[in-house]
């Protein structure tokens, strides 16, 4: 084998997978995983650990994989992460653990994400279960939201003996893992549900269909229902629109709506009641992971799909692997392009989109080069569907109904990065609700930090 290169991972053929919702990446088998693990140099001062937001002992678990001790490897990961089967699949490893791997200096980094995924999948298939706390301490903690931040925080607190209840607004737990990330990247029945079941096996209760701020408020949970601390992991689920003419036309969707219909409501399946609009030619506006997910979903529903993004390929915020997969499947990238108007027929259905060319100017505050309009460059494309994937912001429902909980001007909850403490006593927060839309693993890191913060707070309080 070539030690400079990753052991390749098996995938569905692009032409086949572009027509189904099955998982694209098939993962390593035991032999492949052990071979890949042997590429790890087991560094003393392992840089990869610093690149992981929850500081998994990466060389530690990889050495176990190398020797074929998969259960032991799972135990090492389990100390730091509650959702390894998810993170191994959806983390942007190129900018985290694998981005720091010394093997990556001269060749390809160790495939840490795929190894983590292998260990998690192996554990599930072999019935390895997480260990429950021996006894509870009788203290109740409420967790708002069952996405990655909430699940991690709840899992950690349950391991410490707290009685934890998660309140979820939708009918299925998982947050973005359930409604946002599609089946072909993250299987729901095979991966997401079992990981959530593992959190329940730690003793966590999940109450769905509860909209905090409407069904019950945080103040009521604390004053009337006996919760001594609360963690808010409600995410950033409010979609942004551009404000251009024609945006309310029929055939224009937020990526959130489109993906929720497909992923949560299973609109792509004939045996489910929720409809989805199957356009022939779809434009997805945006360049993040959500844009890639929406584009590849539309493709699987039978459309010709264009990604319309205002910067160039180098600035695409999506995971490199997803951009690569999207291209292989036939998604067309219209880069340095920005829509200025959506055209409609007399019944208000989308017929086309006016697009303006862009070029890159000076770097902006985020360090990315700012797109600048090219005057007189407008042209029209024919599309019947437009999916807006411009990012999301936190829903103000919780902050506006909780006394003493302060937010900043982006409606993000103000919380201490180290322990998740908010401006209200006993209330902690983390994940996208605090940072605005970010990644699954950062949300998990915040959930972990807050669980530690809550434990310290309740220990002191007695």
């Amino acid at each position, binding site marked *: 084998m070539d030690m400079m290169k990753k052991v390749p991972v098996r995938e569905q053929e692009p032409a086949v997978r572009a027509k189904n919702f099955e998982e694209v990446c098939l993962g390593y088998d035991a032999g492949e995983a052990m071979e890949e693990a042997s590429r790890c140099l087991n560094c003393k001062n392992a840089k990869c650990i610093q690149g992981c937001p929850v500081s998994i002992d990466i060389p530690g678990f990889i050495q176990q994989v190398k020797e074929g001790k998969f259960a032991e490897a799972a135990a090492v990961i389990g100390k730091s992460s509650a959702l390894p089967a998810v993170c191994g699949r959806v983390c942007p490893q190129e900018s985290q653990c694998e981005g720091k791997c010394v093997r990556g200096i001269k060749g390809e980094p160790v495939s840490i994400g795929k190894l983590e995924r292998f260990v998690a999948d192996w554990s599930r298939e072999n019935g390895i279960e997480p260990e429950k706390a021996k006894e509870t301490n009788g203290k109740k903690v409420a967790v708002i939201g069952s996405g990655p931040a909430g699940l991690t925080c709840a899992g950690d607190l349950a391991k410490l003996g707290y009685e934890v209840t998660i309140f979820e607004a939708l009918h299925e737990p998982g947050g973005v893992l359930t409604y946002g990330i599609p089946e072909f990247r993250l299987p729901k029945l095979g991966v997401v549900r079992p990981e959530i079941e593992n959190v329940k096996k730690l003793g966590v209760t999940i109450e769905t269909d509860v909209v905090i701020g*409407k*069904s019950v408020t945080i103040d009521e949970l604390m004053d009337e229902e006996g919760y001594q601390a609360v963690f808010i992991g409600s995410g950033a689920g409010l979609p942004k*629109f551009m404000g251009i003419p024609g*945006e309310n036309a029929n055939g224009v969707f937020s990526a959130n709506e489109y993906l929720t219909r497909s992923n949560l409501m299973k609109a792509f399946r004939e045996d489910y*009641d929720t409809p989805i609009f199957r356009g022939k030619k779809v434009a997805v506006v945006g360049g993040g992971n959500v844009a890639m997910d929406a584009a590849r979903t539309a493709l699987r529903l039978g459309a010709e799909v264009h990604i319309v993004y205002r910067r160039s390929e180098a600035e695409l915020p999506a995971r490199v692997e997803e951009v690569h997969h999207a291209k292989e499947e036939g998604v067309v990238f219209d880069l340095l392009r920005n829509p200025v108007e959506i055209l409609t027929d007399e019944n*208000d259905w989308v017929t086309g989109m006016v697009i303006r060319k862009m070029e890159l100017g000076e770097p902006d505050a985020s360090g990315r080069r700012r797109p600048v309009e090219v005057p007189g460059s407008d042209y029209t494309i024919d599309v019947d569907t437009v999916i807006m994937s411009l990012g999301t912001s936190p829903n103000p429902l919780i902050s506006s109904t909780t006394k003493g909980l302060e937010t900043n001007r982006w409606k993000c909850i103000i919380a201490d990065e180290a322990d998740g403490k908010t401006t209200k006593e006993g209330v902690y927060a983390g994940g996208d609700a605090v940072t605005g839309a970010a990644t699954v693993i950062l949300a998990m890191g915040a959930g972990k930090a807050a669980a530690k913060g809550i434990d310290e707070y309740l220990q002191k309080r007695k």
Partner: protein
Amino acid sequence: MYKIVKAECLADKIYLMDVEAPRVAKACQPGEFVIVKMDETGERIPLTICDYDREKGLVTIVFQVVGASTLRMASLQEGDAFQDFVGPLGQPSEFVKEDIEAVKGRRYLFVAGGVGSAPVYPQVKWMREHGIDVDVIEGAKTKSLLILEEELRAVAGNLYVTTDDGSYCRKGMVTEVIRDLVENQGKKYDVCVAIGPMIMMKFVCKLTKELGIPTIVSLNPIMVDGTGMCGACRVTVGGEVKFACVDGPEFDGHQVDFDQAMKRQQMYKTEEGRAYLREQEKESHHGGCGMCGGEA
């Protein structure tokens, strides 16, 4: 699961159910709505709250069969359960949040069209509970489609019933009754609350604008989550984009772009129509209806 303790057919294709949902019953206010999902494969369907019993933990919903999902829902019986029942959602009616003396100082007219009588009922009941007598106009296509008449009569100051075909009480549209009350009977109103089909609300607003009566409507656009995360329910009010599920569902009717809202409601019409026909006629349907795309 949310148990159905009462299931009743109020009129042709219109059903009432009392559902056990203690958290919703405890927190809900007039003007708010719930989202129900009957089983694993079901859709999430928004329904306004018709009544509630906080002590028994019950919430009353009323719905009309308009597509395959509501047709399936209509088959649920007492003792069955909804898999999901979420709420309350949306903003309560403005008067719930206002100073009660200010509310008492106003003359209200409520206009209910068709199944719109269901969301109007808790508002009128709230008024009665606070000692305020209001005028209510109730309209239906025909006598057999009139619902909650007795319930409304019990809580309204005056109830004026009208049917489009004259099969019961007055003959004509609700707008004709409004004009009659204001122009012939010397009634004066400070606020009109109109809830019913989008087309009815549009015409009521056209008239009340002419008559100078500020009017509130409750919109019923397509919804998915009902918590503000998708924007399926977006409507234009006063030139601004609003999400009906979190900013509404009640809005200043004189500011609503009804034409756009009605066109957006049609978005899945063919799909719903197809699914409905598939469900209703099963194997016996062989196309030719112009709706289902089947072979003639």
